[in-house]
């Protein structure tokens, strides 16, 4: 027998087909329905903002890795594309491209690379960029365009349903009366309302959610727990006092809740590792969201809720462990 050089390595000798970049591609694909809805309602702006955001995110990651850290670039893993895309989806379509670039710099530079890059960042980078812009440029970030193709009464122009609610409540109006001025639940479900590009259409986001589940990119635990918690908590408030509270379905369909639950809170790096931990994390996000929406200064609280719970993830991971095999009944 001729001598042949054989590879020797430890088992397993097989590997599944999953790779980091495939998972990232899957997230991008899952975002496409929500993005298409935004193109339909907001036109060319909804093309330009994501392109700028993705382009600058990838470029910043490349430049920081190459010139600041002196490491080999890893932009091909696709995580910067996901961050850029997600960041764009949280912004209004009429935002200035310069602000988008600034947001991408903060998201990638501060949110991700300053902690050591992919896998090491405690906070969701896209949300870090979004919240930075939101706090620094509140006017530009809350001046939403009206969606095209549909006729909405003047009352909603430029304000999201949640913004309208908060404004009205501040003026002492009854929520039940304010709800007459916002789009119907059905309109909100398909995205016919003002808002950030990716957050308006619950239907499209749910389509992406189903895709993520089918492809086993994420599990149901985090999104379902958040949405259930919001529904129950908002439902209790509403039943207790319908005059001052919106109905729970309104809470599910408005603001960034859907987008945040499905795409932001489920970010691998910044969410808990065990299924049990994911449930606690989801409950936390749901509670904080409703508390901010109902009692806080801002109309919307999902972005803060997720970032706050991101901070608890290391502690959750430390104390909430998966159930070990054979943990039960010692000595049988």
């Amino acid at each position: 027998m001729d001598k042949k050089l054989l590879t020797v390595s430890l088992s397993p000798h097989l590997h599944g087909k999953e790779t980091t970049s495939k998972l990232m591609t899957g997230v991008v694909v899952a975002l496409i329905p929500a993005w298409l809805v935004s193109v339909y309602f907001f036109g060319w702006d909804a093309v330009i903002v994501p392109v700028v955001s993705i382009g600058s995110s990838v470029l910043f990651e490349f430049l920081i890795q190459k010139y600041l850290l002196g490491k080999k670039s890893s932009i091909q893993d696709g995580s910067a594309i996901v961050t850029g895309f997600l960041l764009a989806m949280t912004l209004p379509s009429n935002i200035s491209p310069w602000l988008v670039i600034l947001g991408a710099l903060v998201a990638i530079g501060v949110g991700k690379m300053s902690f050591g890059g992919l896998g090491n960042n405690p906070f969701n980078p896209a949300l870090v960029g979004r919240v930075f812009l939101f706090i620094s440029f509140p006017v530009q970030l809350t001046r939403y365009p009206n969606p095209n193709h549909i006729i909405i009464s003047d009352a909603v122009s430029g304000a999201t349903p949640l913004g309208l609610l908060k404004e009205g409540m501040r003026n002492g109006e009854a929520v039940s009366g304010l709800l007459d001025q916002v789009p119907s639940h059905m309109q909100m479900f398909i995205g016919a309302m003002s808002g950030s590009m990716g957050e308006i259409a619950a239907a499209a986001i749910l389509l992406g959610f189903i895709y993520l589940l089918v492809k086993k990119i994420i599990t149901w635990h985090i999104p379902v727990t958040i949405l259930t918690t919001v529904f129950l908590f908002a439902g209790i408030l509403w039943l207790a006092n319908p005059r001052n509270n919106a109905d729970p379905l309104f809470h599910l369909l408005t603001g960034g809740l859907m987008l945040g639950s499905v795409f932001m809170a489920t970010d691998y790096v910044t969410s808990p590792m065990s299924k049990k931990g994911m449930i606690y994390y989801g409950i936390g996000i749901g509670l904080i969201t409703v508390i901010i929406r109902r009692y806080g200064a801002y109309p919307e609280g999902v972005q803060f809720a997720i970032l706050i719970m991101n901070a608890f993830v290391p502690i959750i991971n430390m104390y909430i462990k998966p159930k070990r095999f054979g943990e039960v009944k010692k000595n049988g």
Partner: protein
Amino acid sequence: MQNTKYRTFPRGGIHPPEWKLSAGEPIKEISAPARVIIPLTQHLGAPAVPVVERGTAVVTGQLLAQGQGFVSANIHTPVSGKVIKIDAAIDASGYKRTAIIIDVDGDEWDSTIDRSPSLNKNIRDSREEIIRKVQDAGIVGMGGATFPTHVKLRVPKGKKADMLIINGVECEPFLTADHRLMLEKGNELMIGVRLIMKALEVKNAVIGIEENKDDAIEYLSGLAEKQPGISVQTLKVKYPQGGEKQLIKAVTGREVPGGGLPVDVGVVVHNVGTTFAVYEAVQKNKPLIERIVTVTGRSLSTPSNFLVRIGTPVSKLIDAAGGLPEDTGKVVLGGPMMGKAINNLDIPVTKGTSGVLFLPADESHREKADPCIRCSKCISVCPMGLEPYLLMPLAEYKLWDKAEKEKVMDCIECGSCSYTCPAHRPLLDYIRLGKMQVGQLIRKRKQTV
């Protein structure tokens, strides 16, 4: 009797491609090679001590080396001929270890061995005699763990077994040796099961088989109908269902406590290959000198199941299966998930060799590892409920105490985590390192106490 409800173990597990290429190939006997290499360590525990020396003429089935100590096993010659040396030879571990090398001359068998193909249904031996015969025959767990079988047949004092599970799962991709054995030696298996039941003094035995072997399920279920106490349990296909603890959980719902033994929950598990060897030892007086080996690979011209004498070099099996595939980059003894890669085709088949697998060069190398993205897939697939993503850095940074607290010793090394990791991280490699170090620390602690 066949239990119709399909079961599986609830936590973790993966579905690698099955690639059971040789499932339809009947077992073919391969004649003895010109020279055999018989390592003295073919089992878990202490190496056997040679009772022959250079120049001794031996007949097939004669004792070569005596097991020493409680956990060890006898070794017999699988061929007749002459011992030419007792020397170090590389075995599947990659290390040189002592082996007895025999040049084959003819094929003369020990006269006490019953070589007739007739079925010996009569169970005459007492419990003690069965165990003694199994010990004499040098039988070890043939699923790959190679734990001496006679030790497992003696239920420790104070414990009680109420069920025997026969492992016919064969969950490793590619391997079909157990599958063929179940199809071709069903009657012998049933007697083997009865013998083990008698030795353990249990009334119930369940043969666990995954549903991808429906012909074996059907055949053995039919045979089991005439056997009181024996039944077949169909299992859903999931790796690593052949793992002892996973199989017990799947069949009985009982969970072996951490650090405990199957008998702690009243169960003893034996592989079908072992069961057949028990039949041959007790009813035919035949020591463990040959076994069924699946020789397979997607580039191999004729994937086969061979009945092989222990000590036959791998190269001889390659010739019998149509020659070494051109694109071979890796040769694995055992299955692709838990088998050992070898660097030398002269390495012999031993008692634990269930298969020889040829992997093409382009599948022989690992991908470059990327950073952990904390996708938690390794946790989802771990059948032991561990956190491989965490155990890896604990071993990397030598945090042995923490690794022990995180139950690194519970790892069964099934490889599901490494298989699944999208970042291609060498999770199991580091976990093995952790197990080794923590194991040493635990032993040291026990010594000082």
